[in-house]
């Protein structure tokens, strides 16, 4: 039986013999090597069940020797429980080990701020704790769809071999296959006991037999994957997968935290860079300085190699600043760009930032200077004021840099530069305006203080030279539909032009219509451009309106020998001066007119005084003819008095000979139609040019006799009564009779007419007075006789005195001087006579 309980391997014949011998000895001595010891054994039950038993053999002493007692206990259940407990203990120990690994990992990860370092630590942990020597961690960017190899197990490789391996693995991730790639895309773990059996597997190393890859997930989003590989088939079990999953979750959170930390730090750095740029830009005042500081600032902030700023001028983008950083090459020539062309021009036309990487593959980059410079990536941000693009800021790098990934930062920098540039532009414009205002003030001060037209015109030409450079300039005033050239400077022969008049043309008409200056880039190229005088040199030309009281009173032409000498901005600036000049000219004209009016009134007053000083008709007529002729420097004057249908030539200037026959002074009104017209219409009649006017024979004779050119016939009106006509004429050429001049002649004629009428009345009353005196003398004589005859008859005398007083009063009323010392009025005269 003892033999049966032995393990099968021990059930040998020798053992059986040994047992028999031992037993026989035991029965005799009560001793056995294993007696009294609890022995455990496995036992195969005849029914095949494996049992665990324990038992003890012990002797029972009898009188005749020893009996052998054996008890056996089935401890199978106990043994199985023990085995299960041991296994559980092993599992718990494994978990404890895993937990310890995770704990230490989480402690390590928490201190890491670089995703790459977190990943490298995870791989190191996998190798040290789990014994996985091959592994990699890859990140997946859901926005770009690109994979980034974050870390790869060193696998004991040398540096260069390791780098080669990195490049190879990275290339594998860029392919459209692979287990790790699949896991990162699908977010599910994959465990392959035989990699070659899975079509998704992409073979990078033929030695690899099995692979385990689990996703890196944060907040339900897969950000990448961890994979481990083994050269042993079925190297990974569920526990490995579970462990790697737990570790991957920890790593994912740590990597994401590190990325967020990096992102936060990057944002903080960006904000700091933006602030630095804003401060630097805001401390500048000139446009050039601002552009230079801004260009350097954006290079410092972005670490780009090249930075530049261009400003929009019309359709052109003109470079104003270029800076380089850690870059040995420079632009040979950064040309002016055009809107809509190349990346810079597109940023303007599309009003948005343009990014390019790699630039040499970018068909939009058409001007090639960036490619030729060796740039691989570029960003161009439009500079916007209000909603208008006024320039661009560009930056480029010799490495492939995806600036669009930092578009918020780049475009904020652009915005800061735009603000700074805008402020600088505004400041520069303000400065320019101040300078222009000062120039205008200086220029205007030379004209506004003057009232004399000649001085004003010269002052305008002086001032214009301060405002803008010119080779020649002219001032025209509009009068009677013509342009009168009143002042000019710089012409080859000014004397030919000064005082000349020209018809208005399409250019002056346009300026009159628009009230805006007109600029010709090159007058030589304009067929309709009229050249007055010897002015073939004129290329750059502009015509400025002289506007006063909302009317174009004249023009200022500004001329240069240089084509495109003047631009719209020059014209605007010069127009500001022209407006001042127009006011000065207008004031001078008003002053001239007022002064002339004063002079006219003064002459009229003098003439009135003179006329009042004489009552002799011939002298009066001669005075009128003389002063009327001299008033405005005319050469000839005449006064005709009218007597029904005949005219009487009263006086002329120059005067008629003293013995001029009276019969020759008489003329028939019908033979002088222009005089007749003036008299019938009671308005002045003008012959602007005798050579172009139809004249009667008598008129022709007078015109020839006195060499008359332009004639004005003014009716002499004393109230409603026609007295005659005043005729004035120029003798040294055709001249214009201006409205104020005509008005003045008419005033003089009216004064003359009243004087003539007064003289006539005076002559008539004098004649009448003479008659009365004669009658008074006769009457006085009669009265004296009566007094003598009727002495003492005081009553009659008193009546006589009354009569005499009455008569004297009539004389005074008739304008005649009373007789001095009238004895009749002497007190007591009559009494004395009566007494005598």
């Amino acid at each position, binding site marked *: *039986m*003892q033999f*049966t*309980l032995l393990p099968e391997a021990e059930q040998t014949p020798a053992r059986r013999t040994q047992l*028999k011998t031992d*037993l*026989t000895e035991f*029965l005799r001595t009560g001793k056995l090597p294993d007696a009294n010891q609890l022995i455990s054994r496995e*036992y195969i*039950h*005849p*029914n095949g069940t494996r*049992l665990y*038993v324990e*038992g003890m053999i012990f002797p*029972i002493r*009898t009188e*005749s*020797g*020893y*009996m*052998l*007692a*054996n*008890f*056996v*206990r*089935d401890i199978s259940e106990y043994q199985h429980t023990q085995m299960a407990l041991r296994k559980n203990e092993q599992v718990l120990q494994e978990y404890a080990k895993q937990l310890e690994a995770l704990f230490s990992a989480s402690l390590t990860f928490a201190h890491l701020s670089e995703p790459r370092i977190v990943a490298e630590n995870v791989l190191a942990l996998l190798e040290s704790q789990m014994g996985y020597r091959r592994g990699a961690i890859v990140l997946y960017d859901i926005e770009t769809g690109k994979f980034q190899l974050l870390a790869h197990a060193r696998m004991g490789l040398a540096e260069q071999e390791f780098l080669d391996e990195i490049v190879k693995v990275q290339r594998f991730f860029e392919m459209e296959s692979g287990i790790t790639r699949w896991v990162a895309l699908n977010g599910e773990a994959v465990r392959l006991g035989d990699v070659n059996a899975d079509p998704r597997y992409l073979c990078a190393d033929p030695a690899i037999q099995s692979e385990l890859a689990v996703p890196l997930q944060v907040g339900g989003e897969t950000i990448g994957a961890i994979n481990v590989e083994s050269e042993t088939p079925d190297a990974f079990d569920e526990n490995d997968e579970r462990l790697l999953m737990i570790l991957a979750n920890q790593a994912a959170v740590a990597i994401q935290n590190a990325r967020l930390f990096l992102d936060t730090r990057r944002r903080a750095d960006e904000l700091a860079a933006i602030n630095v740029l804003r401060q630097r830009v805001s401390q500048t005042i000139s446009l050039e300085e601002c552009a230079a500081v801004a260009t350097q600032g954006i290079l410092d902030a972005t670490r780009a190699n090249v930075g530049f700023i261009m400003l929009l001028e019309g359709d052109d983008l003109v470079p104003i600043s270029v800076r380089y950083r850690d870059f040995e090459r420079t632009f040979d020539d950064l040309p002016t760009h055009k809107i809509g062309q190349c990346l810079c021009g597109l940023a303007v036309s599309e009003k948005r930032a343009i990014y390019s990487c790699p630039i040499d593959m970018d068909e939009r980059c058409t001007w090639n200077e960036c490619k030729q410079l060796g740039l691989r990536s570029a960003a161009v941000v439009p500079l916007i004021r209000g909603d208008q693009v006024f320039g661009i800021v560009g930056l480029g790098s010799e490495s492939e840099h995806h600036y669009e990934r930092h578009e918020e930062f780049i475009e904020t920098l652009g915005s800061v530069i735009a603000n700074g540039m805008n402020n600088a532009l505004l400041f520069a414009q303000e400065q320019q305006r101040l300078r222009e205002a000062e120039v205008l003030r200086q220029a205007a001060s030379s004209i506004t203080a003057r009232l004399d037209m000649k001085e004003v015109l010269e002052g305008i030409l002086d001032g214009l030279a301060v405002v803008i450079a010119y080779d020649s300039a002219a001032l025209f005033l509009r009068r009677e539909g013509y342009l009168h050239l009143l002042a000019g400077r710089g012409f080859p022969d000014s004397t030919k032009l000064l005082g000349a008049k020209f018809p208005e043309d399409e250019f002056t008409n346009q300026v009159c219509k628009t009230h805006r200056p007109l600029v010709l880039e090159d007058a030589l190229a304009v067929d309709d451009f009229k050249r007055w005088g010897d002015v073939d040199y004129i290329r750059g030309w502009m015509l400025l309106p002289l506007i006063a009281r909302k009317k174009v009173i004249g023009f200022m032409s500004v001329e240069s020998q240089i084509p495109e000498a003047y631009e719209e901005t020059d014209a605007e600036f010069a127009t500001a001066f022209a407006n001042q000049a127009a006011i000065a000219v207008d004031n001078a004209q008003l002053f001239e007119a007022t002064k002339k009016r004063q002079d006219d009134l003064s002459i009229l007053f003098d003439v009135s005084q003179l006329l009042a000083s004489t009552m002799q008709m011939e002298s009066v007529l001669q005075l009128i003819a003389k002063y009327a002729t001299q008033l405005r420097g005319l050469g000839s004057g005449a006064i005709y008095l009218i007597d029904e249908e005949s005219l009487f030539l009263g006086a002329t200037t120059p005067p008629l000979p003293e013995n001029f026959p009276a019969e020759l002074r008489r003329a028939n009104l019908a033979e002088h139609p222009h005089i007749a017209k003036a008299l019938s219409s009671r308005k002045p009649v003008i012959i602007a040019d005798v050579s172009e006017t139809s004249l009667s024979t008598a008129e022709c004779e007078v015109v020839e006799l006195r060499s008359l050119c332009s004639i004005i016939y003014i009716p002499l009106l004393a109230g409603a009564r026609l007295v005659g006509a005043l005729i004035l004429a120029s003798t040294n050429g055709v001249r214009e009779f201006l409205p104020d001049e005509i008005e003045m002649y008419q005033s003089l004629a009216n004064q003359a007419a009243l004087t003539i009428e007064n003289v006539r009345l005076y002559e008539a009353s004098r004649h009448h007075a003479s008659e009365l005196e004669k009658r008074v003398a006769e009457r006085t004589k009669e009265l004296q006789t009566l007094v003598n005859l009727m002495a003492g008859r005081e009553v009659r005398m008193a009546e006589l005195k009354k009569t005499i007083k009455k008569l004297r009063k009539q004389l005074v009323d008739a304008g005649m001087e009373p007789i001095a010392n009238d004895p009749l009025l002497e007190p007591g005269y009559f009494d004395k006579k009566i007494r005598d």
Partner: protein
Amino acid sequence: MNAGLYQSVIEQSQDGIAICDENGVMVVWNRAMEQITGVPAADMLGLKV
């Protein structure tokens, strides 16, 4: 304690009990022994070891 009581205790024991006498003849092979070893008492009792 009489022999019958011993016999009963041995027979009711949960542990297998086997006893050989001084001559090596199996004299006790209780029920528990039968169950544990799968060998019936009839096969063992009287057997000289």
